[in-house]
């Protein structure tokens, strides 16, 4: 039996407290009124002014210049221009919904039409801009909590999916790790509840991460009106409850059978788990896809991508496997997993490597198809990310692809604990950034920053994750006893 070391318990509690403090700070410092925003913008302008003279937004001006000098030249300048033309004038709601290039568009507009625009219109525009920034800044702490909550919850779902695959595939190497996987999936219950509460908060208008929940926006937005049959509060919550309920049901059922199998005299419970796992995997792949449209893609309700579900899946699946590997290594180092050898670690590291490449394949497929065709309604997604999230967007590719490929390609390295842990930390940070890049551009736009709120949210959910997972580990022996494949797994070597 595993005993939760008091040091680790204290550590997780400290993380939770620090996280709550960070989140609290970010909520308290978020601007409440337009006046606050005006003050923030003035300060920013003053800081900019020192360096760039009169130009408040030098990059926007540069864009205009480029576009004028060589019309339609570069990929993104062209798009920005086109976007500017295709957005119907006066359809403020639409513009509002496409948070994306708002700042740029407005500046373009200013430069092009400044000479013959009345003062009044200018003031109007300024007010609108302030309101837009206010919404972004108010979204920021909520989005930070949402991203971290979603990341850790999906991570444990990824571990659960891996567990189901191992069961359904009758893998001979992994049964010694089943209790670790079951413990990681224990976080699915509190994690799902938190994410669900955040979704309910959205429907109740406590936050505005999902722009389609705002009835005023929908009333002025032809595209969103067409989607109300699917994107509406009650149906959204029913779907979420159904999906989470299904996943938790499988998790609890499989865990129960796994424990009963320990004291059984035959393999009935093993067979039950086999069938349940196969059924769950079918349910999972359908619900996972829909979940990704609901909770992630719908923050950009004007944009869509068909392979998005797979892409999200690859992201949290590799995170889940990485978490399994890291917790296994921790327990092994503490002397709790007698039968786990370097071959098991090697296998997990191979999965980390392989699924990292799979994630990259999907990331690139999604990016390259849209970049190549350059259809304005699709490509805005990447224009925002490349222009405003350049470092996180491409940095995540380096962390999730280049680093694991170079470090985990070596067979000997995959057997070294410290290499696997190091690669694991990079992969987990990279996939947090992946989720960050999926949510933030739609909710806070160019106002992003990884500060107290974001780090606080990570710490809070990391602390909670550690607490729940290691508590679950103490509940059962770390070796599932009567699994028919256990002997093979104990002697597994590669």
């Amino acid at each position, binding site marked *: 039996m595993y005993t939760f070391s008091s040091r680790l318990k204290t550590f997780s509690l400290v993380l939770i407290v620090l996280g709550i403090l960070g989140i609290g700070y970010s909520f308290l410092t978020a601007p409440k009124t337009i006046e606050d925003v005006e003050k923030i913008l003035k300060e920013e302008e003053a800081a900019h002014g020192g360096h760039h003279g009169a130009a408040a937004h030098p990059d926007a001006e540069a864009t205009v210049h480029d576009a004028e000098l060589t019309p339609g030249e570069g990929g993104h300048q062209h798009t920005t221009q086109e976007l500017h033309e295709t957005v119907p004038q006066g359809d403020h709601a639409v513009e509002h919904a496409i948070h994306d290039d708002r700042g740029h568009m407005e500046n373009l507009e200013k430069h092009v039409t400044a000479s013959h625009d009345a003062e009044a219109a200018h003031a109007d525009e300024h007010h609108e801009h302030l309101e837009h920034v206010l919404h972004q800044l108010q979204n920021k702490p909520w989005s930070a909590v949402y991203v971290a909550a979603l990341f850790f919850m999906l991570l444990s779902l990824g571990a659960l999916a891996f567990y189901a695959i191992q069961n359904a595939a009758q893998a001979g190497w992994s049964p010694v790790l089943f209790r670790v996987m079951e413990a990681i999936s224990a976080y699915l219950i509190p994690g799902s509840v938190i994410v669900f509460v955040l979704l309910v908060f959205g429907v109740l208008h406590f936050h505005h991460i999902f722009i389609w929940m705002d009835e005023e926006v929908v009333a002025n937005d032809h595209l969103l009106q067409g989607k109300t049959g699917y994107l509406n509060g009650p149906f959204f919550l029913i779907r979420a409850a159904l999906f989470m309920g299904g996943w938790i049901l499988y998790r609890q059922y499989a865990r129960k059978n796994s424990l009963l199998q320990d004291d059984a005299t035959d393999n009935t419970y093993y067979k039950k788990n086999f069938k349940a796992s196969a059924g769950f995997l079918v349910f999972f792949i359908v619900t996972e896809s829909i979940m990704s449209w609901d909770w992630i893609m719908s923050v950009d309700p004007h944009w869509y991508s068909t392979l998005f579900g797979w892409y999200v899946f690859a992201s949290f699946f590799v995170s889940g496997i990485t978490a399994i590997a890291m917790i296994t290594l921790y327990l092994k180092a503490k002397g709790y997993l007698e039968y786990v050898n370097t071959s098991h670690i090697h296998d997990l590291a191979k999965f980390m490597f392989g699924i990292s490449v799979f994630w990259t394949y999907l990331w690139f497929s999604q990016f*390259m198809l849209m970049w190549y065709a350059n259809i304005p309604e699709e490509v805005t997604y990447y224009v925002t990310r490349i222009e405003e999230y350049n470092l996180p967007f491409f940095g995540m590719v380096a962390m999730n692809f280049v680093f694991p490929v170079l470090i985990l390609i070596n067979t000997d390295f995959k057997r070294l604990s410290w290499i696997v842990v190091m690669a694991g930390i990079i992969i987990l940070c990279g996939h947090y950034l992946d989720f960050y890049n999926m949510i933030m551009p739609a909710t806070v736009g160019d106002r992003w920053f990884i500060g107290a709120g974001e780090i606080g949210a990570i710490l809070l959910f990391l602390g909670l994750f550690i607490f729940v997972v290691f508590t679950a580990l103490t509940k059962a022996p770390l070796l599932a006893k009567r699994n028919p494949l256990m002997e093979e797994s104990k002697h597994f070597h590669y």
Partner: protein
Amino acid sequence: MSNKVIHVLYNDDDILMDAVKKTRAAHHHIEEVYTPFPVHGLDKAMGLAPTRIAIASFLYGLVGLSVATTMMRYMMIIDWPQDIGGKPSFSYIQNMPAFVPVMFEMTVFFAAHLMVITFYLRSKLWPFKKAENPDVRTTDDHFLMEVAAHGDVDQLVSFFENTGAVEVKVIEKH
């Protein structure tokens, strides 16, 4: 000087493995082992050095990547940078997504083919090569261990007869 070797035949891979371990323990030099199929762990038992072909393959992959990059940069960016359907051809990085499929395939192509050719070269395999098996049964159901015979040959023969061999032959090699 005569160059004698002993051919020891087995009909089971487990017996072969045991024999290899015993032979190594007795410090007899194993020249070669002929088997009809890969015997798991035989290389370790014989104490063979691990292969470096994966390292070679990685390097070939890098060559492929460089070839693809250099080729496309020269053709698409430097030599004749046309505007093809609005794709930006001002610098390599600007148009890189379009080049990635080629970069990937070239990397795999070079890594795979050059590795296979390396394998053929290192194991001296080619279409009209004369087959080297000392006993035709080794391609079907027998295992043959070839050991250098130095000193007391009779004693060696009795040693190998005790390792479960079905046949022990002393061969004069030229």
